[in-house]
């Protein structure tokens, strides 16, 4: 057996932060590699390098015995590498057949007419292959999420690739569809197709793979035949030991007895929105940093959006400082002292072309305006901006008038945090506040979070980085598939238990 694909010493950094460290891994022809790791462990980056979306800083790929450096996705596809992504990459307005053959529709010679009958015949063949009973002309928007996933797989297969990468292919499938998918996978394997299977469902990985590889913090920490692993061992490897990353300590943690919880600030009861969250109940206390952990798609961000009034919910109650909130809307939440730092700072957090001062002032602008005329007190506004710039330690070299987009990611995030801190909120909902920023800025943001909590605010901290939550929080809630499945106090923090709850592994470890 020879290796179809080899990663040789792949290293990749983003803004100086290593996301892949010297990964060396081979995939033998005709085998299936199971790839596991926490969110942010480097799986996607590795696959993006393979797919030609990213280039490694050092190291190289060997494809079919030759060095391989795809310049883009098209080149990777031409080499015979196909991806089935977790996010669906289909055109909903087009038919199944058009989605499958968009870039290579069968035509009449060189004329721009499509041979519809042949297109339908070819499409039907691939749909049969994946076990989807639908007419080739059906628009994709009429299909269920699971059926769409099957169309994606059919598209990948129709390229007749030599290697298929499945990235969380079963998250949107029903049980029946999942079983069908597994049958399909064993058929493909029997035919000798090489596959890489990425999933958080460890039992599936163990069942479907020949080889298993575990990534943690960008490094390959375990790798070998499937028979050498069980779910418990995989989890231990994924979690590893504590990193040497620094987190600030809170004064309250040093006390011998844990401080009694503060007054309840935000009480959530039975919050339900079908398909998103189910019966979520928790209480956020004054002075508390409450972590919310879950894998991607567990419903963490969606929960925060509901609490701030951006998304609707079907059932449940939310009380703020004892007062029930009836209809929740962003401007009302804001007036009640709730702040929401969103996950996507470019889309939801900032006006990138506007100045630093305007961005910082936006949330609290109303306080500096005359009640009836709206006339702004510019001097007062400038004072507030100056104060908050100092509080979040924004880089002093940037002028107030400079567009926010000229700042680094860390400083941009400080602007977002600063504009909410100006509102002096009682409840802070922070969704991935340190995503994509450098270590120094992270530490400063951690300090700001603790400072707010020490001042009596309640902080709900959402993060995909378990280390971060363990380093910062008083309590951690674990969410899986829209439900809260576990709750741990600081004294009981246990990486394996949290990850197991998030993954739902029936492990004996």
């Amino acid at each position, binding site marked *: 057996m020879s290796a179809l694909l080899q990663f040789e010493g792949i290293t990749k950094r983003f803004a100086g932060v290593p996301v892949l460290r010297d990964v060396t891994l081979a995939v033998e022809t005709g085998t299936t590699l199971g790839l596991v790791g926490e969110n942010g462990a480097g799986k996607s980056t590795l696959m993006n390098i393979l797919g030609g979306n990213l280039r490694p800083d050092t190291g190289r790929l060997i494809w079919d015995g030759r060095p391989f450096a795809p310049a883009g996705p098209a080149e990777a596809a031409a080499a015979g590498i196909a991806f089935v992504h977790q996010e669906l990459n289909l055109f909903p307005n087009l038919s199944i057949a058009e989605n499958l053959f968009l870039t290579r529709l069968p035509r009449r010679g060189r004329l721009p007419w499509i041979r519809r009958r042949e297109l339908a015949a070819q499409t039907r063949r691939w749909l049969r292959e994946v076990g989807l009973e639908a007419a080739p002309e059906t628009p994709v928007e009429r299909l269920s999420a699971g059926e769409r996933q099957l169309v994606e797989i059919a598209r990948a297969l129709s390229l007749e690739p030599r290697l298929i990468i499945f990235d969380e292919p079963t998250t949107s499938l029903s049980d029946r569809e999942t079983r069908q998918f597994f049958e399909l996978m064993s058929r493909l394997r029997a035919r000798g197709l090489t596959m890489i299977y990425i999933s958080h469902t460890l039992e599936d990985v163990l069942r479907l793979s020949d080889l298993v590889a575990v990534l943690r913090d960008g490094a390959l920490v375990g790798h070998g035949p499937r028979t050498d692993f069980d779910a418990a061992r995989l989890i231990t490897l994924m979690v590893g030991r504590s990193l040497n990353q620094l987190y600030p300590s809170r004064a309250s943690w040093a006390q011998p007895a844990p401080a009694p919880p503060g007054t309840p600030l935000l009480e959530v009861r039975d919050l339900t929105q079908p398909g998103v969250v189910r019966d979520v109940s928790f209480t956020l206390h004054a002075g508390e940093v409450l972590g919310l952990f879950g894998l991607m798609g567990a419903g963490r961000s969606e929960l925060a959006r509901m609490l701030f009034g951006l998304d609707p919910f079907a059932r449940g109650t939310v009380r703020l400082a004892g007062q029930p909130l009836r209809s929740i809307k962003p*401007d009302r939440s804001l007036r009640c002292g709730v702040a929401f730092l*969103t996950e996507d700072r470019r889309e*939801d957090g900032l*006006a990138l072309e506007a100045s630093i001062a305007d961005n910082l002032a936006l949330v609290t602008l109303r306080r500096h*305006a005359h009640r009836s005329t*709206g006339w702004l007190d510019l001097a007062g506004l400038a004072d507030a901006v100056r104060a908050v710039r100092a509080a979040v330690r924004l880089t002093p070299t940037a002028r107030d008038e400079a567009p926010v987009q000229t700042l680094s990611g860390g400083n941009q995030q400080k602007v977002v945090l600063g504009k909410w801190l100006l509102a002096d909120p009682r409840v802070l909902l922070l969704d991935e506040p340190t995503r994509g920023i450098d270590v120094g800025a992270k530490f400063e943001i951690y300090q700001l979070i603790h400072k707010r909590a020490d001042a009596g605010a309640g902080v709900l901290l959402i993060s995909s980085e378990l280390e971060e939550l363990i380093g910062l929080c008083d309590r951690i809630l674990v969410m899986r598939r829209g439900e809260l499945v576990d709750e741990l106090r600081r004294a009981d923090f246990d990486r394996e238990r949290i990850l197991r709850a998030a993954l739902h592994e029936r492990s004996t470890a």
Partner: protein
Amino acid sequence: MLRRALDSEYLVLWLVLASFVALLPFTPDLASRQNLVNLLLTLLPLLILACGQTLVLITAGIDLSACSIMAVASVVGGLAMNGDTGWLAGSPWAAPAGVLLMLAVGVVFGAFNGLAVAVLRMPPFMVTLTTMMAGSGLAIWLTRSETIYNLPPAFNALGGHLALAAMIAVALAGGAHLLLNRTLLGRWLYAIGHNARMAHISGVPVTGVTLAAYVLSGLLAAAAAVLYTGQAETASPLLGQRLLLDVIAATVIGGTSLFGGRGKVLWTLAGVAFIKLLDNSLNLLNCSFFTITMVKGAVVLAAALLDATRRRLLEAEA
């Protein structure tokens, strides 16, 4: 160097002065007292109109209906005020009541646009395009396609008397300037234009602010109609039919971005001056109407290109 020039706030203002000086040897009439008065008289209502457009463009919207709103306001005012058949005829309050009525027309049309865009989330281009068509149709239907004469002299003075017209225009443009720079509403308009999703999350009442932008645009269009109608001493359903290009061109040439978030009344002033100067000098050079239109079209294209280039440079910088 190129970037500095493109980024300069007053690029267009300098361009206006430079082209004025450059054109003077060819058309000495340009600087004549009579010509300058004429230039100013036609510049003022266009400035008011363009200020309304600026407010809407800042929110990343567009108001194509401004000129039709003007026509309807003019006609409604004319029908009410004219000395022959108007129901305000002979009343000492004819002029003020007529003006109020015209402004009300602007507010109603603006509110319609604003509700469709802000509440029903319809695309501004489509909404105002249809309002434009319906408005000009309505204006013609109301008058059976005829021009209305015999308006009260007090009303005609508002647009025809240079000092009075200048006072009104300066007050309105100055008001728009202060609104944008010194008030909550102004800052909110910019925030929405930059990133409406972000503005919503940051507690900006996006619906109300967007509505306000279109209402103000309608109101300013009606105010411009008061000046134009007074200047011509006639109310015409065809008023402003050819102005739409000028309005959008002036605003965009000034530097207000079609993508939203960028724009200033001072820039718009420069843009209006530029367009009017172009118009006036080509006229004095005996160019035909068609030539002038073609040249203006080319200038608008150049302005749009400038806007896109500016954005590209900004993005490259980031």
